[in-house]
C-alpha cells in the first residue's frame, strides 16, 4: 500500500503545511484534553497518513513535546503548581532513558522500523488502560517520611487553585519513582511519546504526590527528557525540517487551546472515543510492523 499522501509532491506546499499544522493541532488539543500529550497521536498520524518512516515521525513528535513542555510548563511553574525539586530529581533518570531510547532508535534500530512500529502497540495498550482507569490516589498526609526524600527536601506543599488552601504532601519511594519514570523516558526516546501518561501515575500512586502537582511537574520535566532524545535525532540527521516545524507549531497551539477547553469538555466521553482511535492506530501500526501494509 503506497502512502496515502505523498509529501514530496501530491499537494501544493501550502496545503501540505496546513495539513501538518492541522493534524498536530488536533493531536495537541486531544492530548491536552485527556491529559496524555499529543505525541501518541502524532507518531501514528505521520506514519499512517503520510507513510513516513517512524524515525522521522518520532523526531518530529519529540520536538513537539519539547515545544509543549516549554509553553505549558512555564505557565505551571509561574502558578507555583510545579514542584521543581521533584521534577529535577526525576529528570536524572528520564533524561538517561530518553537518551538511551533515541540512541538505540538511530543506531541499532536505524534500519528496523518494523520493530519500532510493533513497539508502539504495547505502549498504546498500557496508555489506553491508564486512560480508562480512574486512578487518582489522594496523598496520604500521615505517610512516613522517606530518608532520601527528606535529605533532598522533596516533600512540600502547593496552593490548590480552586480553594486557595495550602496542601502539604510527603514524598515517598523516590527511588521507585525514579525507576518508573526512567522507563517512561526510554519509551519517549524510542517512540516519541511524551511519557506523561506513565509519569503522572508514577508520581501520584507511587510517590504520594498530589495529582495536580504530578500533572504539572510531568509537563515541566518531559521537556528535558524529549530534548535529550530530540538532540540525538536532530544532530544525527533524522529530522525532516518542513515536517517537524509545522508539527511543533500546531502542537503548541492545539495544547494551549485544549488546556483552556478542558474544564468544559466532556472529557470522560472523549476518552472512550480516543481510546478507540488509538486502538485502530495501534492495529494499523502492528500491521505495518508485520509487513502486511507498506
Amino acid at each position: 500500500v503506497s502512502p496515502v499522501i505523498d509529501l514530496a509532491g501530491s499537494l501544493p506546499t501550502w496545503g501540505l503545511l496546513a495539513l501538518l499544522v492541522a493534524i498536530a493541532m488536533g493531536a495537541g488539543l486531544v492530548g491536552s484534553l485527556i491529559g496524555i500529550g499529543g505525541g501518541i497521536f502524532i507518531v501514528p498520524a505521520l506514519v499512517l497518513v503520510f507513510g513516513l518512516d517512524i524515525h522521522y515521525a518520532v523526531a518530529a513528535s519529540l520536538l513537539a513535546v519539547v515545544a509543549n513542555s516549554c509553553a505549558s510548563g512555564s505557565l505551571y511553574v509561574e502558578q507555583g503548581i510545579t514542584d521543581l525539586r521533584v521534577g529535577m530529581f526525576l529528570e536524572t533518570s528520564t533524561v538517561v532513558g530518553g537518551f538511551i531510547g533515541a540512541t538505540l532508535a538511530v543506531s541499532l534500530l536505524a534500519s528496523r522500523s518494523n520493530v519500532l512500529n510493533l513497539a508502539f502497540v504495547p505502549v498504546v495498550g498500557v496508555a489506553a488502560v491508564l486512560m480508562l482507569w480512574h486512578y487518582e490516589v489522594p496523598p496520604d498526609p500521615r505517610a512516613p517520611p522517606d530518608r532520601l526524600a527528606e535529605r533532598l527536601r522533596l516533600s512540600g506543599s502547593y496552593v490548590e487553585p480552586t480553594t486557595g488552601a495550602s496542601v502539604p504532601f510527603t514524598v515517598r519511594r523516590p527511588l521507585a519513582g525514579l525507576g518508573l519514570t526512567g522507563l517512561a523516558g526510554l519509551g519517549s526516546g524510542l517512540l516519541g511519546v511524551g511519557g506523561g501518561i506513565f509519569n503522572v501515575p508514577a508520581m501520584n500512586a507511587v510517590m504520594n504526590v498530589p495529582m495536580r502537582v504530578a500533572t504539572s511537574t510531568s509537563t515541566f520535566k518531559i521537556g528535558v527528557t524529549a530534548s535529550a532524545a530530540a538532540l540525538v535525532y536532530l544532530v544525527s540527521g533524522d529530522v525532516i525540517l518542513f515536517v517537524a516545524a509545522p508539527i511543533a507549531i500546531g502542537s503548541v497551539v492545539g495544547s494551549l487551546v485544549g488546556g483552556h477547553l478542558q474544564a468544559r469538555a466532556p472529557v470522560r466521553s472523549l476518552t472512550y472515543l480516543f481510546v478507540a482511535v488509538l486502538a485502530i492506530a495501534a492495529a494499523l501500526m502492528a500491521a505495518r510492523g508485520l509487513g502486511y501494509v507498506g
Partner: protein
Amino acid sequence: MSAPAEGAAPGSTADAMPVLRRRVVRALRTGVSLSAYALLVAIVGYAIFHTMGIDTAPVPATGGNVAAAFTSPSAGGLVLLGLLVLAITPLTRVVISLGYFASVGDRAFTGVTLFVFLVLLLSVAVGTLL
C-alpha cells in the same frame, strides 16, 4: 544542605525558590517564542515561494549546516535554527538551575542538575557520532 532559599518554607512548592521560578519561566518563554517566530516566518516564506510538495530530505544539525543558515539565509536554514533553539531551551533551563543551586550552596541539587546537563551534552556528542 543550604537554608531554604529567600526565606521560603523548606520545600514549599508554591513559595520556595521564587527567583529560580522567575528565571526558569523567562528562559522557557524566551526559547519557545524565539523558536516559534523563526519557524512561523520560515514556513510562511516556504509556502509562498514553493509551489508543490515539501522537501523531505532530512538535514542534520551539523556545525556546517548551522553556519550556512547564517551565511546563506533560507527557509530551511531558519527552520533548522528554530528547531535547534527549541531543542536547547530545556538545556538552558538546566544551566540556569545549575547556577542557582550552586549559588545557594545546595550541593545535592547542584549535583542533580549537573548530571542532567552532562547527559544533555552527551546527547549532542553521540548524535554527532551516529
